[in-house]
Each structure stands twice: as structure tokens, then as C-alpha cells.
């Protein structure tokens, strides 16, 4: 199937509309594939099917009112997005945050990152035609979701950040339950390795497929595990440390190959690093208030000083940035979100040509896209 160079001769090729209702485009992505047989000549992502104008909404709401919107940009790691908004506003307004809230945010965010990666592994393996890891991963993810639900009250679209802390404190029993979940995850990892990573079919489907070079990633602005799978050790948590991250020890797993397998491996290792962070954080969890006493809660109209400010965090998908422009009112003049999935999707036009339809699905799956986050 791979002996012929791709041609764009219209007599040799045809177009295939993959999506927006296709089982493995993960939401409402439409891929316009030009195929020669089963070989992809060009791949063009068509986006915008779940555009909800989040940026425009931000301009019409107070900072507190916009809080629930944030986790709806990326419903899989909503906690991280929620805290990013809170922290961006705190930084601009100069609101102090108690120690306990800072560490608790790290714990919750890292749990959310693990949940997101678990879901990704399941969905990715489903793309490769293996339905069983999906249910295994969801079982584990469910344990994390229960834990997060007990703290925040919601399963996916969290809004538990408050300017100056958290909406609710971690209860006294939380560390024990968190350690239980971690023990469960730890027990499962060898099983995943045997089921997925050591599987000869999986290795053949993943190794050497969809290679993204460092330069391609750089020129498209790819970040997150996809970038680290191409050998660039860029992680916002290390590059521009924020919150309580500087006080914890963890590594940035990278792999030089840049193929589907590298991206898989990086995410799996990242989950282990996240567990490492959570354990340190649980050990160091300070007492004290979870919300700065007398601070500005959600009820008061918060006004930010005039100015412009950029704040970035490492989401489960990569570099998530918030650009806030304030004119001193209760609502932002402009809020621009730099979401990681957008460039991660754009780079696929480079990775897909020359591969087969089955590879396209694998590559698409390996970049871990969340379409509402691309469209916003």
C-alpha cells in the first residue's frame, strides 16, 4: 500500500469526509481527507462545530460569573482550567492565597490530570480497536472522579476555585481516600503495561507512526505531551513555575522519537509523576484557612486594575494561557484563551500525509484533542 508516492492527480484521488459524526474524531471534528486508495495525500481539519464564543462571553460577565465557563472549555481537565482563571485574576488583582489552598489546588489539579490521561488512554486504545483498556481506564478514572466529586460537588465541570482560595476545604478524611485511590492506580499500572505497552500489535501500530519532528512542533506551537513526545522538555510547571509547584519534586518525561508510541509513553509516565506530586503534596498539606479570611469571595464585585496580563498553566493537553485585558471595570475588556489543542490539531496536516486511514485515526487519537477546547 505504501509503494506509491502521494499524488494530487484528481483522477487518482478522492476525498473522504471523516466526521463531524465519526466514531473516532472525538467530538465534532471534521477531517477532510484526500485519499489515494487508503493512503492519505492531504488532511485538512475543519473546525468550529462546537464554537460557543467563550471569549465573548467573558467580556460580558464579571470575573466570578465567568468561573463556571472555564471548565467547560476542556471538560476533561476542567479543574486545571478553572484554577488557571482563578490564579490569573488573583495575580492581576494581587489577592493573597493561603498555603493550604495552594497545595490543595495542586492535589486536585494533578488528580484531574491523571483522570484526563486515563480517559485518553482508553479512548486512544479504542481508536486502535482494543475495547478492553477503555473499561479498565474508566474504572480507575471513576475512582478519581468520586474523590473529586466529594470535594467539589461535580464530576466533570468543576467550579471550585475562588479568588483567594477554594470554595470548600478538603475534609479531614480526604488524604486517606486520596491515598487509597493512588494505591489502586499503582496496582493497575503493571497490568496496563502488560496489556498495552508490551502488546506486539499495539507496538506495531504505534511505533514509527505519525512522527512529528521537534521543528514541526516548534513551528506550529505544539505543547504538552505531544511536544514532549518529540523530545522537547517543555512543561509550564517547570519552565514558568506557578502556584505551589516549585516546592515539589518531579521529572518531565520526554522521548525523542515523536511518534504515536512516544506520545503514549509520555502520558503514561506523566501520570506516575502526577502521583509523585500528589503524594508529596499530601505529606506537606498545611493546616490553616482554605480561603483567605475577609478576602474577596464570589459575591462582591471584583474590579481589576487597568492593565494587561498573561498567565499560563500546564493543562493535561499542554500550555494553556489566559490573556486578560482590564480597563478597571468589573468585567474584563478582553479575555483571550490560548488553548493547547488548537496548535496540536493544526500540526496534523503535517503528520498525516503519507500514512493510511488507520494511522490517521491513531495519530488523531494520540494528540489527545478536546474539540470544545479548540473551538472555545
Amino acid at each position: 500500500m505504501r509503494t506509491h508516492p502521494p499524488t494530487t492527480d484528481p483522477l487518482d484521488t478522492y476525498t473522504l469526509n471523516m466526521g463531524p459524526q465519526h466514531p473516532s474524531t472525538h467530538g465534532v471534528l471534521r477531517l477532510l481527507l484526500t485519499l489515494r486508495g487508503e493512503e492519505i495525500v492531504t488532511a485538512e481539519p475543519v473546525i468550529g462545530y462546537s464554537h460557543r464564543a467563550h471569549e465573548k462571553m467573558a467580556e460580558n460577565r464579571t470575573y466570578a460569573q465567568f468561573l463556571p465557563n472555564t471548565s467547560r472549555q476542556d471538560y476533561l481537565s476542567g479543574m486545571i482550567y478553572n484554577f488557571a482563571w482563578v490564579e490569573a485574576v488573583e495575580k492581576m488583582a494581587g489577592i493573597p492565597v493561603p498555603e493550604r489552598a495552594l497545595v490543595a489546588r495542586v492535589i486536585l489539579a494533578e488528580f484531574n490530570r491523571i483522570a484526563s490521561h486515563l480517559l485518553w488512554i482508553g479512548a486512544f486504545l479504542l481508536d486502535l480497536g482494543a475495547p478492553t483498556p477503555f473499561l479498565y481506564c474508566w474504572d480507575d478514572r471513576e475512582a478519581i472522579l468520586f474523590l473529586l466529586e466529594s470535594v467539589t460537588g461535580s464530576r466533570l465541570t468543576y467550579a471550585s476555585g475562588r479568588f483567594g482560595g477554594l470554595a470548600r476545604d478538603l475534609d479531614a478524611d480526604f488524604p486517606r481516600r486520596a491515598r487509597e485511590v493512588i494505591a489502586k492506580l499503582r496496582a493497575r499500572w503493571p497490568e496496563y503495561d502488560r496489556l498495552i505497552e508490551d502488546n506486539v500489535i499495539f507496538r506495531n501500530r504505534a511505533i514509527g507512526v505519525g512522527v512529528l519532528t521537534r521543528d514541526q512542533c516548534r513551528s506550529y506551537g505544539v505543547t504538552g505531551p505531544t511536544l514532549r513526545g518529540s523530545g522537547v522538555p517543555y512543561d509550564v510547571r517547570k519552565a514558568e513555575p506557578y502556584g505551589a509547584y516549585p516546592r515539589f519534586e518531579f521529572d518531565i518525561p520526554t522521548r525523542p522519537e515523536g511518534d504515536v508510541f512516544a506520545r503514549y509513553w509520555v502520558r503514561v509516565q506523566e501520570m506516575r509523576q502526577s502521583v509523585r506530586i500528589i503524594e508529596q503534596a499530601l505529606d506537606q498539606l498545611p493546616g490553616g484557612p482554605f480561603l483567605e479570611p475577609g478576602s474577596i469571595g464570589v459575591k462582591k464585585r471584583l474590579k481589576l486594575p487597568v492593565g494587561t496580563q498573561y498567565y499560563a498553566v500546564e493543562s493535561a493537553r499542554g500550555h494553556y494561557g489566559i490573556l486578560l485585558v482590564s480597563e478597571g471595570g468589573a468585567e474584563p475588556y478582553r479575555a483571550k484563551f490560548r488553548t493547547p489543542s488548537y496548535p496540536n490539531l493544526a500540526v496534523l496536516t503535517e503528520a498525516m500525509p503519507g500514512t493510511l486511514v488507520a494511522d490517521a485515526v491513531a495519530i488523531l487519537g494520540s494528540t489527545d484533542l478536546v474539540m470544545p477546547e479548540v473551538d472555545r
Partner: protein
Amino acid sequence: MNATGLVLGLAAALAIVGALLAVGLRNILHNILGFALSQVGLAGLFLTLGSDFLAVVLILVYVGAVAIAMVYAVMLSHPMDVAPVPRSRLKTAGAAVLALVVAAALWLLVRGAAFPPPSGPLEVLAGVTGHRLVSDYVLAFELISVLLVIAMIGAVMVARSFHGHRARTVGSAPAAAGAPAADPGVGAGEAAR
């Protein structure tokens, strides 16, 4: 009419109807399906002649292999969405008349010939045929195998001659359980089976 006669009639009808479909319809895929039907009918005719092994081989080769190779060739060569050019009536009539004349002549020839009655009882065991193939007719048998091998190699060479020398390496996966990623001759190899 006895059972053999019934089967004979059915099989003959299948063969002829299939052949008509294979030639008359405009859609090439329908032609191939008609051809397969016709071969099934032909196999039925062989069955009534007591040549059951031959019937099985006919289906195996023509329906299982040749028809499918044709389907593949169609897929690789026919643009699917091009409307067929209208057929000229004169040409159709001419071809039909000419074919009819030839067939009629042949039929008259066959009718006129005197066929001797069978020399002995119908002995059509596959074992006997197989034995003959590797004893009396071993030369023909070997020639056929050589021909098939040559045809296969030839088919592979012809089908890959255009782009084969520009093998691509981008994105090819490393060895899978002892088998590297792509096999250039696969498509043609099937055709030659």
C-alpha cells in the same frame, strides 16, 4: 423429468442467464456478478456430468479467485462516478447478429456431427483424474504449474512497473512479528493466485 434433468435445466438456465447479465448489463460490477452466477451454473452442469471435483475447482477458481481479482481490477481502474457512454444501437444489433450467425453455424456443425456412444461406464472419480494428471499427463500438469508461476511473477512485475522503483520510507513501521511494514506486490499477487 427426472432429478438429473431438473438439475441440468436449472444449471443451464443459470449459466445462460448469468452470461447474458455478464454481457448485457452496463454496470461492470453487475457484469462480474453475472459472470460469477454463470460459472456457478457451469459448475452445476459439470455436476450433472458426474465431474463433481471439476465443479468444485471451477467455483474455487472462477468465483473465488478470478471474479474477485476482476473486482479488484475494477476498483483499481474504473472511475466509479463516470456515467456510461450511450451504446450505439447499430453496433449492438450488428454484434448480436454476427454472434447469432456464428453460434448458428456452430450449432449446425454440432448437429451434423456423429458422436460415438460412450466407450465405457462413466468413471469420473477425482482419484482417477488426479492419477492421470501425475502419470500420463504429467508434462501438461507441470507446464501448467510453470505457466501459473510465470503468470504470477509477470502480473506482479506488470502491475508494479510504474511506481514500484520509488519506494517510500516515510512513516513505515519497523518489523512486525517478523514482517516488515509494506508488501509492494501484494495486490498483484492476489490477482495472480
